[in-house]
């Protein structure tokens, strides 16, 4: 097996290391120092004019230095935060462009040190679950998904997406009982009926557990939302439907479904996502692609 950027990955350690560290409250120390200097200045006797003048000038300079240092450090902090935000945006684009090794390396580096903000760390972890699933590291993906969900670290929309991802990972791990329970939970969420993600997970469960009739019913009902929300990933649904038709012995329909699936996505990619499609390989021809 080829080495991947995720070899020797220790997810629990990453979760611990990436926790943002509490910053030293320099601003409060500086304010305290300023008050202290002003207080000492007041205590110096009015009769020792030279001393009071010298101390006044010194404390003035010190306060100015403290103020400038605070300003400089807050600017540096802001710049570092913006740099991290840009890096995260870059990672999001790498994932969208399917540049998985680069995304994996960038995220691993990012999470191998304390994050500058809790928000960026959570965002990086959410992206990392996608990368881990791409590399078939479903145990690690589920660990992070559960970490984020159990602690309530994400907003409801992100949580819904994470729960769909976790259910898909469970299906890939053959944890069918857990996946079934997770699907029931998902279906109880408001708006789940209009979610293409939930429909796809259910379709996969039905095909995987040998319920092709239910899978086909679901597909026919949900095709409009699958097309609207999944874009080219609707190929996944067509491929699973191809397998459902195959299980029912409806070869012509299976052939059409496989052709539709492979019009939209390469057969190798579909097979990587759903190993169950192996049974179709060689029996149904993928849609031919025109020569360049």
């Amino acid at each position, binding site marked *: 097996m080829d080495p991947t950027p995720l070899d020797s990955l220790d997810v629990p350690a990453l979760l611990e290391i990436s926790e943002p560290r509490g910053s030293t409250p320099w601003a409060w120390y500086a304010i305290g120092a300023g008050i202290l200097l002003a207080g000492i200045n007041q205590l110096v006797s009015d009769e020792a004019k030279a001393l009071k003048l010298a101390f006044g000038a010194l404390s003035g300079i010190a306060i100015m230095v403290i103020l400038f240092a605070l300003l400089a450090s807050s600017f540096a902090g802001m710049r570092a935060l913006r740099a991290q935000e840009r890096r995260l*945006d870059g990672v999001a*684009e790498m994932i969208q*462009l399917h540049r998985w090794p680069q995304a994996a390396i960038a995220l691993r580096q990012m999470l191998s040190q304390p994050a500058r903000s809790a928000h960026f760390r959570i965002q990086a972890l959410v992206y990392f679950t996608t990368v881990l699933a791409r590399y078939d590291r479903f145990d690690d993906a589920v660990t992070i998904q559960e970490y984020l969900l159990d602690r309530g670290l994400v907003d409801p929309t992100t949580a819904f997406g994470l729960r769909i991802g976790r259910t898909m990972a469970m299906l890939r791990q053959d944890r069918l009982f857990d996946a079934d329970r997770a699907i029931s939970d998902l279906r109880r969420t408001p708006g789940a009926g209009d979610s293409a993600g939930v429909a796809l997970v259910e379709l996969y469960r039905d095909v995987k557990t040998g319920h092709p009739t239910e899978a086909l019913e679901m597909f026919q009902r949900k095709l409009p939302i699958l*097309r609207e*929300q999944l874009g080219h990933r609707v190929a996944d649904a067509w491929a699973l439907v191809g397998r459902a038709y195959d299980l029912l012995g409806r070869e012509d329909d299976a052939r059409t479904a496989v052709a539709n699936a492979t*019009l*939209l996505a390469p057969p190798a990619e579909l097979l990587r996502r759903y190993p169950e499609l192996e049974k179709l390989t060689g029996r149904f021809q993928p*849609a031919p692609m025109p*020569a*360049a």
Partner: protein
Amino acid sequence: MLSAEAAIHRTRRDLTLGYALKLLVPAALVGSLMIGPEPVRLALVLGVIGFWMALGLTSVRRAQLAAMSPSLIAAGRFEEAEQQIDQAIRSFSPFSAAKLRPLHHLALLRHAQRRWQETAMICRALLGQRMGAVRGLSNPARLILTDALLEMNDVRGAYESITRLYRERLSLAEVLHLMLLQLDYSARIGAWKSMFENVMAKVQMVELMPTDGAARAQAFLALAARKLGREDWAQWLGSRAQLLVDVPRLVAERPVLGELWKSDLPASGQG
């Protein structure tokens, strides 16, 4: 409902007032340090700082409220979005970001409502301002402007806008949007050859687009392929588009694409 002209006028007026206020406040601070005995000076300084902070807080609160309008627009809740944008535009803020962002949201709303003339007018007004802290709005505003110009069949205006966009540093989402607009523009001027150049790279990019954009872009590429006699590509790309959206809808939005499915479409759908 606020008209586009009124929204632009109000924003420009508030921006001018805001610039004046930004000059006046430091002057007022310096002035208050020179007037009267120490307690009066202190009170004046605190008063000026308090006034500025109150304006800042009000602006932040209004900005938080207005930040919801893009998601309302995306959900098709136009009336609620209109109300929020209206409030944000009518309220005064000395900060340009707090004034320009609602104007951008209004452009988004009018675009979603397919009111192209107003969309173009607002985008032009927005792009004519110094963006400062909200310069990130400039590329999205120009993309919306280009789209509106194409819808109005202003090919020359769209060309100028596209040329400007090519000089900017764009995010991936913006690159994808620009590619779709470029294909739309090229189809209008019949630049089939340039549309079909690097077709495989374009197809890979198209796959990253949301459904409607992906379908339309592939239909444009299929049309270019047909015009160049590459029937294999025309069939392949057309079939992909067809799997993503319903053909009559695609043709209703861009009648030129009807050529791809002439025999399949009902008479009314052929445009």
